[in-house]
């Protein structure tokens, strides 16, 4: 089914907070829902489809969270979708919302995401143990102490081994993010950093430094996707998904290539559906839990050949106005926001800002009509969900 023109992203909102001591998780979801609906010019009563993932309060009680969230929001629904694939879920939700609208299941779809790991003093180690204790792979992994950082460290180490990628090249990804974040008043880290600053920061998990890692932040975001008739009645620019892909990449019984993420499949599918090529993309939001995440996705999505990522990102390659591909012009997860350890929502929001011409003037891509957003949920070095969206602004 062609996606183009089936539905439009009419509302997008990112919570300004990065430390939500004064908000519960449920209230953060309400805040972002209200923000996205106001941005669209729609009301609570217009929403008849709701999309959420495992970050809603109550998720830990199996099956309870989404129903509880719908009640707390006060929605009256015809359609509910709780597809969970961690940080990539929200890009998947956009594609699902378009499908649901095209199938007549709803006309106005609300997607929310929120988290407060900073307020809750999140520990990656404790979180990893809790998340995976009943999973089938857990007995064969937990004894060895995989925490998120060292699994991504193994991706980076292998990339360096196969392709000669350097720590300096990875550092350029953080430099680009910080260059953009200086213009974002809400960014957690607004200070520009240099390659040397990254290399001088402590090693977290070899070969990754502290500044190769994203921030841990509270907040969230929301999107509103609407039927074409609804979208045309509003006063917002018309942004439509034209290509989408989703994949689950896993370890396949121990037969896998750690450098080939699910993005290999999702990029191929999304570009084929959209009928465009990577070289046509004017702006890209790429998941940036770590610098290596961006590098691998650039290669996997086809922006450059495998092994070329290091040269692609070096010397400001991802800086808006300077480089060959502006990436994460809000400062991304590396410098601005990675709310609830789930970065997919903010990836879509910045792509929408760029397509509307509403990014910060210092980072706005001139006449941006074609953008890509890509999310990873889980861990690139292990099992993960990958989701790609290609978005177009209609003239």
């Amino acid at each position, binding site marked *: 089914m062609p996606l183009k023109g089936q539905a439009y992203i009419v509302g997008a909102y990112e919570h300004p907070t990065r430390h939500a001591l004064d908000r519960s998780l449920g209230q953060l979801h309400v805040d972002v829902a209200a923000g996205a609906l106001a941005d669209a010019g729609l009301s609570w009563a217009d929403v008849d489809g709701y999309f959420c993932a495992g970050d809603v309060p109550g998720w830990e009680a199996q099956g309870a969270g989404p129903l509880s969230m719908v009640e707390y929001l006060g929605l009256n629904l015809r359609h509910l979708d709780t597809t969970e694939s961690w940080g990539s879920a929200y890009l998947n939700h956009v594609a699902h919302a378009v499908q649901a609208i095209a199938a007549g299941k709803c006309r106005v779809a609300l997607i929310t995401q929120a988290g407060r790991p900073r307020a809750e003093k999140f520990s990656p180690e404790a979180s990893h143990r809790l998340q995976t204790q009943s999973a089938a792979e857990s007995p064969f992994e937990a004894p060895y102490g995989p925490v998120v950082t060292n699994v991504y460290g193994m991706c980076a180490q292998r990339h360096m081994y196969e392709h000669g990628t350097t720590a300096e090249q990875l550092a350029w990804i953080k430099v680009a993010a910080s260059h953009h974040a200086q213009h974002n008043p809400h960014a957690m880290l607004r200070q520009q950093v240099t390659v040397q600053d990254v290399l001088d920061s402590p090693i977290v998990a070899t070969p990754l430094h502290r500044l190769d890692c994203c921030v841990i932040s509270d907040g969230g975001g929301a999107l509103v996707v609407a039927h074409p008739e609804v979208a045309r009645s509003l006063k917002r620019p018309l942004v439509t998904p034209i290509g989408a892909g989703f994949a689950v990449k896993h370890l396949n*019984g121990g037969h896998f290539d750690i450098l080939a993420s699910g993005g290999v499949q999702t990029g191929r599918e999304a570009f084929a559906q959209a009928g465009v090529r990577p070289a046509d993309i004017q702006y890209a939001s790429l998941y940036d839990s770590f610098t290596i995440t961006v590098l691998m996705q650039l290669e996997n999505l086809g922006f450059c050949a495998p092994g070329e990522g290091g040269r692609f990102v070096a010397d400001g390659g991802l800086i808006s106005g300077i480089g060959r591909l502006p990436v994460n012009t809000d400062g991304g997860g590396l410098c601005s926001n990675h709310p609830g350890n789930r970065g997919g929502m903010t990836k879509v929001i910045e792509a929408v800002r760029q397509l509307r011409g509403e990014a910060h003037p210092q980072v706005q891509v001139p006449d941006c009509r074609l953008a890509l957003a890509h999310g990873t949920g889980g861990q690139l070095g292990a099992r993960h969900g990958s989701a790609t969206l290609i978005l177009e602004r209609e003239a």
Partner: protein
Amino acid sequence: MQDRIPPSPQIWPETAAYWDAANEGRLLLRRCLDTGRAYHYPRPHSPFTGSGNTEWMQASGKGTVYSLSVLPRAQPPYCIAYVELAEGPIMLSNLLTEDLASLRIGQPVQVCFVASASGQMVPMFEPC
């Protein structure tokens, strides 16, 4: 050699044989009899075909380092690794050595067994 005591694995009925063998100093793999391919982690059905036509096999315990990462600030520091076994599958494990900085991708390694918190032995690898 290693001060870190690994957390103990949860032992499920389907893979108890793997853990019993580890206590005897043997590394087991599971093999898909339809494709002839060994796989890890073990499960009764083949991840390649879905078939239950699979069996246990004893691994040589030899492999090479596929990738690794050291957590230098953990107490004590430790090295996580993917080890590519001689039989084909890549398995997650730890590398044990006095000198974590000396470890390299491509390095040959040999299985060894370390007691976890409960006394259950778990397979790890050391340079050979």
